[in-house]
């Protein structure tokens, strides 16, 4: 019974979170804190922090976490499956439609119009992430000079390496993580 409830809750989260990532947060809160007594608000804040610190989509991370809290590992699996189920059906249908009709002139025109917008969306997401990385908060602070120097150094070095040598992003990210530990540790030591 509890499995069914978990599945249904995360099915709804998966179905109604359009735009991904932070769009899912209020929905998750509604399902697991307000509608069901599965998490306290503090636990919910914790899982959001952990979801940001660990790889993977926020919705999947919280499905796993909530599932485990409520019904152990099988609960985690059920909640996760519920969360991706709507995507599977809808996206596969859209993929079929896309590959069937993308040869049409009009469809090509529509897609050509959308492509620059996609770049804009990615750019905007990148800027949000950069702000979070160098200021430690989501929005620009009033004091623009109060940035984290180490973060700026790591960012510029990573960007340089990527542009210059075109190496794999996975290595760049592993390197940035290592650089973070090293630089922040040194900073803590010296200051």
């Amino acid at each position, binding site marked *: 019974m509890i499995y069914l409830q978990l599945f249904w809750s995360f099915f709804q989260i998966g179905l109604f979170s359009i735009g991904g990532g932070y769009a899912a947060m209020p929905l998750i809160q509604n399902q697991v804190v307000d509608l069901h007594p599965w998490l306290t608000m503090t636990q919910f804040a914790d899982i959001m922090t952990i979801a940001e610190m660990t790889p993977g989509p926020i919705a999947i991370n919280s499905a796993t976490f909530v599932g485990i809290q409520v019904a152990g590992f099988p609960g985690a699996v059920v909640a996760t499956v519920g969360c991706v189920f709507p995507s599977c059906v809808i996206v596969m249908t859209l993929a079929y439609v896309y590959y069937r009709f993308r040869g049409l002139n009009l469809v090509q025109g529509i897609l050509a119009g959308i492509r620059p917008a996609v770049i804009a969306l990615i750019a905007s997401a990148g800027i949000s*992430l950069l702000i979070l990385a160098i200021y430690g908060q989501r929005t620009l602070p009033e004091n623009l000079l109060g940035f984290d120097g180490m973060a700026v150094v790591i960012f510029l070095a990573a960007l340089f390496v990527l542009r210059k040598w075109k190496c794999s992003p996975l290595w760049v*990210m592993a390197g*940035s993580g290592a650089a973070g530990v090293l630089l922040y540790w040194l900073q803590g030591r010296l200051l």
Partner: protein
Amino acid sequence: MKKANANPYGQLFVSTFRLSACTFGGGFVIIPLMRKRFVEELGWIEEQEMMDLTAIAQSSPGAIAVNASILVGYHVAGIPGALLTVLGTVLPPLIIISVISLFYQAFRDSAIVSMAMAGMLCGVAAVIFDVVIHMVKTVARQKRILPLLVLLGSFTAVRFFGVNIILVILVCGVIGALDTCRQQKRSKEAKEE
């Protein structure tokens, strides 16, 4: 199915598993990583196709990372491919969060973990900027004003006015459709003359 690989399934699973294990920050972060892997390294998907898939992933319900991997899997190996890439994308967070939830207080408070995470966040931002620079160059090479205007306009709308992303995609689709109609009409007139 380009570059018919003897066994695309293994490669699909391993690629999405590795990408998912490294996508900190959620959302769009996986797109640049996927582009690098499937467009540049494996050559399974074309540059423009990847942008179309991104738009579909963004406009569909659910996590963008999951949607994008469904699309890539479906393109390379049909429905079995899609199921496999979903599995590859979902497993890393499932495993990692399961382990972390056993001792999440200690994890959250660990100084080394937060230092590494702070560093990786900078790395992720750099990866996204790298891809954006590359993509903007591709658009600029077309030598047309309209795509650049659409790019700037949608950036302003999303970034400074907080316009709903789905709305932006819809409007840009309409602009693209109108532009195509206009071009076709013009070439027809040119032929008639």
